């Protein structure tokens, strides 16, 4: 019984973390058709920012939930202004540019922080489920995921920014029609996407640790999730994460982490084969 409960928590956690690491990319890709291969590095930067901030005596919560997203968001805007904006409509070139960016960021962090960086350990102790103990931090990550997704929903649904965003998703000129200059929209979008990635990176830092090359562990998985989800940013990410997360965890628990990983990837292939437009290409079309 308690094992079931534990497994349930782990499944939900897997879904939550998958959604967290993907949603930033979903926004950037969904709205701008930019394949951001430096996505993993944005997450990595989030982690480092959180570490540095806590190192300077900032409360870990502020560091993770405020400082990290803000700083990485700013970095995102800078990247958009200096590189990405020259590449709109050239999806392939954005791939090369962001790959370069990812190498650059890895190199830079190594140069600045070296390769032995003192991490931050998970706050909130652990709690007992029957015979098992598990980390309270797990629940925190789940909570953050809910809040973030809820926030995005609210913004898309009820704010002007959200309206513009949805408009831009439908077609790029829409934004112009709405009397906003697309460059601004794009800069903001990229910034927001980066910020969310930074947040995710920071929140996951105490769990997975932080080192310059950790981005690789994230980028492929989140990219697959985003594409699997399809056009609609929110419903897409959530549904894909739910599907992949569940399968991944159950497979992992039944066998080994490797098979968990493989099961996830295999599911992705089957999914895209059955729904060539991603989940939301077929279901919840009205979704955000």
């Amino acid at each position, binding site marked *: 019984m308690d094992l079931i409960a534990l497994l349930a928590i782990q499944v939900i956690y897997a879904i939550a973390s998958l959604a967290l690491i993907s949603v930033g990319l979903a926004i950037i890709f969904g709205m701008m058709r930019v394949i951001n291969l430096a996505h993993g590095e944005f997450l990595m930067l989030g982690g480092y920012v959180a570490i540095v901030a806590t190192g300077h005596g900032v409360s870990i919560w502020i560091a993770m939930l405020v400082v990290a997203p803000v700083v990485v968001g700013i970095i995102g805007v800078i990247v958009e202004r200096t590189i990405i904006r020259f590449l709109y409509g050239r999806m392939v070139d954005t791939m090369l540019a962001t790959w370069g960016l990812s190498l650059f960021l890895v190199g830079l962090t190594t140069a600045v922080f070296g390769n032995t960086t003192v991490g931050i350990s998970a706050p909130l102790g652990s709690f007992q489920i029957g015979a098992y103990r598990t980390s309270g931090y797990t629940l925190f990550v789940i909570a953050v995921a809910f809040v973030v997704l809820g926030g995005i929903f609210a913004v898309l649904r009820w704010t002007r920014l959200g309206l513009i965003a949805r408009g831009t998703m439908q077609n790029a000129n829409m934004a112009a029609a709405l009397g906003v200059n697309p460059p601004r929209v794009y800069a903001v979008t990229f910034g927001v996407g980066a910020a969310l990635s930074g947040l995710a990176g920071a929140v996951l830092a105490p769990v997975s640790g932080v080192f310059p090359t950790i981005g690789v562990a994230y980028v492929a998985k989140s990219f*697959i999730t985003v594409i699997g989800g399809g056009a609609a940013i929110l419903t897409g990410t959530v549904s894909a994460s739910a599907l992949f997360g569940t399968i991944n965890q159950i497979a992992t628990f039944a066998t080994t982490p490797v098979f968990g990983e493989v099961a996830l990837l295999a599911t992705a292939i089957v999914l895209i084969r059955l729904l060539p437009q991603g989940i939301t290409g077929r279901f919840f079309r009205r979704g955000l």
Partner: protein
Amino acid sequence: MNARARNLLGLALVGLVGLSFLILTPRFAELDTVLDLTVYMIMAILALSLALVWGYGGILCFGQSAFFGLGAYTYAIAMFNFGESTIPLLLAIALPAAFAALLGYFMFYGRISDVYLGVITLTVTLILFNSVNSTAGPEFHIGSARLGGFNGIPGIPPLNVPGNKAAVIDLEGMFYLSTAALLATYFGLRLLLASRFGRIIVGIRENERRAELLGYDPRAYKLVTFTIGGALAGFAGCLFANWGNFVSPTIFGLAQSAQIIIWVIVGGRGTLIGPIVGCIGVQWLSAALGANQPSGSDWWTRVLANAPLILGIILIAFVLLVPKGLVPTLGDLGQWLLRARARRVATGLKPKQAEEG
């Protein structure tokens, strides 16, 4: 001079340069240079395979490394079981090709296109990476070949002259073989692209729906293109396993698959010579950056002796400054110069004509 003539001239030039390179290098270059060049030639074949599939077939394949790796592993495993390289070599081409055909059928006849192709192919290569990476235990072996997991398979026996185990191809032999193979691949693809088939796949890339309405079945053409690409990549993989006598799962990894795409973009899509140039250029660069590093821990060494940092900057600068890729840009430059010259000549003539008139 018209397109056709320029085209032929180009071909002749490439052939000439290629052949002289093939013959002269081992006589004048140091052995280590020859060995480095060998691997560049091999990788260039891999680059060509994607140049065909993506640059001409319009199929964004993010997992070309899957076929490359399959080729390498197939050769290694078969080699340990057979000991004579003829069958392993053939298998290393046939198996990836068959796999590509299967995957291609699955994708194209499922009407999967665009970025979704990219993701599926990427996912496939990652699956291979994860699976092979977790075969370290002694229980994982095919015949007498242990898969070795993360450590990979070391000490792979080299190719031999077909039918004659004893006549092993030595290091220079490998150079000749790889370079010849690259040239053969290049001209083979040129022929293919000049053929009906080649012109049709380009048409499909340009406007799939129109091609369909003319009665061509894009799925079939893409499938064939993809399969050829797979075969080429597998062949390159086999040569690679020979060059280092070694193969490990990283061959399936994200970095490897991204690299191949980078080569093609850098060199220029829709050309064949471009990806070759891009491949050799990028490879040479990362080797050069890794060599003769200053050692120490001060901040400047950390920045200067930092291959990813520098490579990253170069790539970014490249996208922004040379958006069309190396070879096309050079082409444009040449055109421009010609036209400029033509203009000068024209203006130069005018007064004289006036006198005569």
